[in-house]
């Protein structure tokens, strides 16, 4: 079977981001989606520390410590981009002004609950950042993640066992094995990796799946 690698997965997510969309890409793997946005589409990337119209990383030596993204890496601003303070930035997020956010996840439940900020380990130092605001605020929440954990446990589960980021917030899940929509009737598989059977996918998923009619 042809599992998608990280770049292929990022490219698959990028394909679903339309011209004119206001988009926040979460820290980590979702950041890679920016590298695969189709050339010629004007898409507005938002970074919660206070910019819209975020551009790629600067050339070596061109970094400016005052111009960073949410992951605190140096970035650039596209012509027409702008800066704003945290009140405005989180109004964009919480207020439903972003069209799409793409987040990583530890777990997603059958009804679209998201767990992505805390493993719940008692000795872990918790950190949440803007994850909860993105999850409840964006019009559409995309999750991109491996289908199973490194030890083979499903990350799509009936109920999240890790602490929640938000309740019933995820719209679509992109994994190395499938694209799955979260609907009011449960999880619906819209795409599968080449050479993967539906039965195999079910075995690697901790919640019921339906097949999209197509």
């Amino acid at each position, binding site marked *: 079977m042809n599992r998608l690698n990280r770049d292929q997965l990022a490219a698959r997510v990028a394909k679903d981001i339309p011209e004119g969309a206001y988009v926040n890409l979460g820290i980590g793997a979702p950041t890679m989606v920016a590298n695969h946005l189709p050339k010629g589409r004007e898409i507005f990337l938002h970074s919660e520390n206070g910019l819209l119209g975020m551009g790629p990383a600067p050339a070596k030596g061109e970094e400016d410590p*005052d111009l960073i993204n949410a992951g605190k890496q140096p970035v650039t601003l596209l012509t027409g981009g702008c800066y704003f303070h945290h009140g405005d930035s989180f109004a964009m997020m919480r207020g439903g002004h972003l069209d799409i956010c793409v987040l990583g996840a530890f777990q997603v439940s059958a009804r679209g609950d998201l767990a992505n900020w805390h493993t719940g380990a008692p000795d872990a130092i918790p950190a949440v950042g803007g994850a909860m605001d993105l999850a409840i605020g964006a019009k559409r929440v995309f999750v991109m993640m491996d289908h199973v954990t490194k030890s083979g446990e499903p990350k799509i589960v009936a109920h999240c066992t890790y602490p929640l980021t938000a309740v019933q917030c995820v719209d679509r899940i992109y994994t190395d094995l499938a694209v799955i929509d979260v609907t009011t009737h449960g999880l619906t598989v819209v795409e599968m990796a080449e050479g993967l059977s539906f039965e195999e996918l079910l075995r690697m998923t901790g919640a019921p799946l339906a097949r999209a009619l197509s």
Partner: protein
Amino acid sequence: MIDKVVESMSAAVADIRDGATVMIGGFGTAGMPSELIDALIAQGAKNLTIVNNNAGNGDTGLAALLKARRVKKIICSFPRQADSWVFDGLYKEGQIELELVPQGNLACRIEASGAGLGAIFTPTGYGTLLAQGKETRAIDGKNYVLEMPIRADFALISADRGDRWGNLVYRMTARNFGPIMARAAACTIAQVREVVPLGALDPEIVVTPGIFVQRIVRAGAARRAAA
């Protein structure tokens, strides 16, 4: 003549007392008022409650204040980072209290206090650990959590330029928490790269009106190097 310009960093922070709540601007090191923090460390105030997005990076700025054991509690959204070893150590030893707040709730609790609001209902955090024990309400079919304003005795912020009336403009993403913290503290102290004459800032682009700023102090050349 009204002149909010203070001659030195040490004079700017001289009256911050033990036990004060101090907001510190910045997202990571962008917009962190490093020279004001250094002056606060030298001044010696302790048992402080600090409000910042993070909990210090490396060994300078906010991390240095923590390392000097002046902070009893920190209210922030993202303490754990690759270079947050000072905070990590204090937290694991039980030497510092942490109030973890989702970043947008941190922002709107700060905004609420500056705007004179009693509290806010926010959808962020509903149904999570960070809303446990808090009042909730369904409004028009959507669930919200009641969150209280965060008030501060002082705000230490960094801006690009300011004038003697306290009007400020910022630079790039270093703006972050500066404008909202300036409104939420009884006394806001801004370190600026440049103090400009009245009228030099286009009134159409002033980001923080001077009413929210009590003191201005010029940062030295060290500011950019330290950032």
